[in-house]
């Protein structure tokens, strides 16, 4: 349908473990993302077009002269524990770079260390997944990638598109409802989504809170109140969900 017209999202996956690279690559491909895998943070930065020169000032990265960056990266998912540059270091470098800071970053770790999780979220990570990562975890990625695509649009345009998407009257505060999974509710006014397959689709407040707790089990949202940016597409809107106003 509208699928052919969509451009695929491209994810850069970083992990020093070969098995985990294979796994994440398969998970991402199964979720219909384009994938590139690298085995280190420095290779990730290289791929993203950021070079670090050891000779001069190592803390001022510059854009690689030979990097054409034809392929856009919509999300970086990285392991935390890596030799050399950790996932946290990589996250920092991405967020400190003017050209890269808008790329959403997700951290994965085999260890559930709350201080580590908080540190990453505070540094700007969108999500923190506990390994082994599951397909259901990846369902949380799409809104973050869509947000990036929207960055250039002015607020006015976004609001116009929201009007197009809304099928019912909306209150001032709204929520996004994904077709597969529910996200953090911003307001008490829940509107009915058209969800075919998911058994948990009925959005009562109780169930929203339950799924929220489930979602928090293995990962954290950066800021609950921030909510998610409106969905928009250059093609027909796929979701009957309501867009949120941030």
């Amino acid at each position: 349908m509208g699928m052919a017209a969509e451009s695929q999202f491209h994810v850069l996956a970083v992990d020093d473990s070969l098995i985990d690279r294979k796994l994440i690559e398969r998970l991402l491909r199964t979720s219909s993302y384009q994938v590139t895998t690298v085995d280190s943070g420095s290779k990730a930065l290289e791929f993203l077009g950021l070079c670090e020169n050891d000779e001069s000032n190592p803390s001022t990265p510059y854009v690689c002269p030979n990097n054409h960056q034809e392929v856009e990266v919509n999300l970086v998912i990285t392991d935390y524990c890596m030799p050399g540059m950790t996932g946290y270091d990589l996250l920092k470098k991405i967020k400190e770079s003017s050209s890269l800071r808008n790329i959403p970053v997700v951290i994965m770790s085999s260890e559930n260390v709350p201080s580590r999780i908080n540190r990453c979220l505070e540094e700007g990570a969108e999500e923190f997944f506990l390994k082994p990562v599951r397909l259901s975890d990846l369902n949380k990625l799409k809104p973050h990638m869509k947000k990036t695509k929207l960055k250039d649009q002015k607020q006015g345009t976004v609001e116009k598109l929201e009007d197009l998407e809304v099928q019912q009257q909306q209150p001032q505060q709204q929520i996004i409802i994904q077709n597969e999974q529910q996200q953090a509710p911003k307001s008490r006014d829940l509107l009915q989504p058209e969800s075919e397959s998911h058994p948990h689709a009925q959005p009562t407040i109780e169930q929203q809170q339950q799924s929220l707790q489930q979602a928090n089990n293995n990962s954290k949202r950066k800021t609950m109140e921030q909510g998610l940016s409106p969905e928009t597409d250059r093609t027909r809107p796929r979701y009957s969900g309501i867009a949120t106003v941030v």
Partner: protein
Amino acid sequence: MLGLGADLLWADMNRLLAFLFHQGVLDEQFLQLQQLQDETSPNFVSEVVNIYFHESEKLLRNLRALLMEKEFSDYKKMGIHLNQFVGSSSSIGAKRVRNVCVAFRAATEQNNRAGCLRALEMLEHEYCYLKNKLHELFQVK
């Protein structure tokens, strides 16, 4: 005829899998691997498992070499190998191997050489068992 044979083989595989789950040798993550296998990636599970075998045997060799050193004291390096082993075992659902690695890691953190030796023996045993069972499983496939 052929159908019946295939059905019996299928039942065997399921029986073996069920046994391995029951024994705690494998956990749910192994099922996740199977779910990721499809027509576009028909050998995914065996590919991943073969990488696991290859890496695990390397790790086991390194661990044994470290422990056998006359002047052995590099517990930290053992810990690093074990972190990797824990991670990869976890990723394929090798629950029992993973648990032995965790216990082994604890022994390295206590600088307990005897404990490490015992743990290594146990790890080698568990790993062998797992490898044999997985080979059996793949033969049926």
